[in-house]
């Protein structure tokens, strides 16, 4: 249960940063935190008490006690997606800074929000 709480704490903190902060890089950090939180949530769903990692390093390990591999595969995908989005976001932020000379979202508003 503590894992759920931890992951939701990350998600909520991240969303708070994205909603309340003005600095673009901070906002991207918030999104990154949300990603981590969601990943932790997915992995904790797949966990089984007393389970082992889903790897048959020797054939004697009983398959029944293994944790669920599917969330792990999903999270691998999600981590890579997070990297791609973060890199793209930061490149856009760099360009926004080049054009506007500021990272403050309140000042970058030639288009109406």
């Amino acid at each position: 249960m503590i894992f759920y709480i931890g992951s939701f704490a990350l998600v909520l903190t991240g969303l708070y940063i994205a909603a309340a902060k003005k600095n673009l890089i901070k906002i991207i950090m918030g999104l990154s935190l949300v990603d981590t939180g969601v990943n932790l949530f997915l992995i904790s769903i797949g966990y089984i008490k007393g389970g082992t990692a889903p790897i048959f390093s020797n054939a004697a390990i009983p398959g029944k006690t293994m944790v669920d591999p599917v969330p792990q595969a999903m999270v691998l995908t999600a981590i890579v997606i997070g990297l791609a989005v973060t890199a793209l976001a930061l490149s856009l932020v760099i360009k926004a800074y080049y054009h506007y000379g500021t990272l403050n979202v309140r000042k970058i508003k030639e288009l109406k929000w």
Partner: protein
Amino acid sequence: MAIAYILIILMILCAVSVVFFKDLLNAVIALAAVSLIASVLFFLLQAPDVAMAEAAIGAALTTAIFIVAVKKTKRYENEKIS
């Protein structure tokens, strides 16, 4: 799993400190700490593959990208301090 409790509390503390750090570099490091602790938690949850990916991608590469971005823009959240 007492260690899990300690780690999670530590992780939440790091996450909250991302909110409060005014120096973006500090915030980036706090973010990296969150990722690193998360990767340990993944390992505790019997997901070594994910732990590896999180450590290599989340903690190392994402942090590097963030640092480059901070270096190319402004270091402080409040832009009056330069």
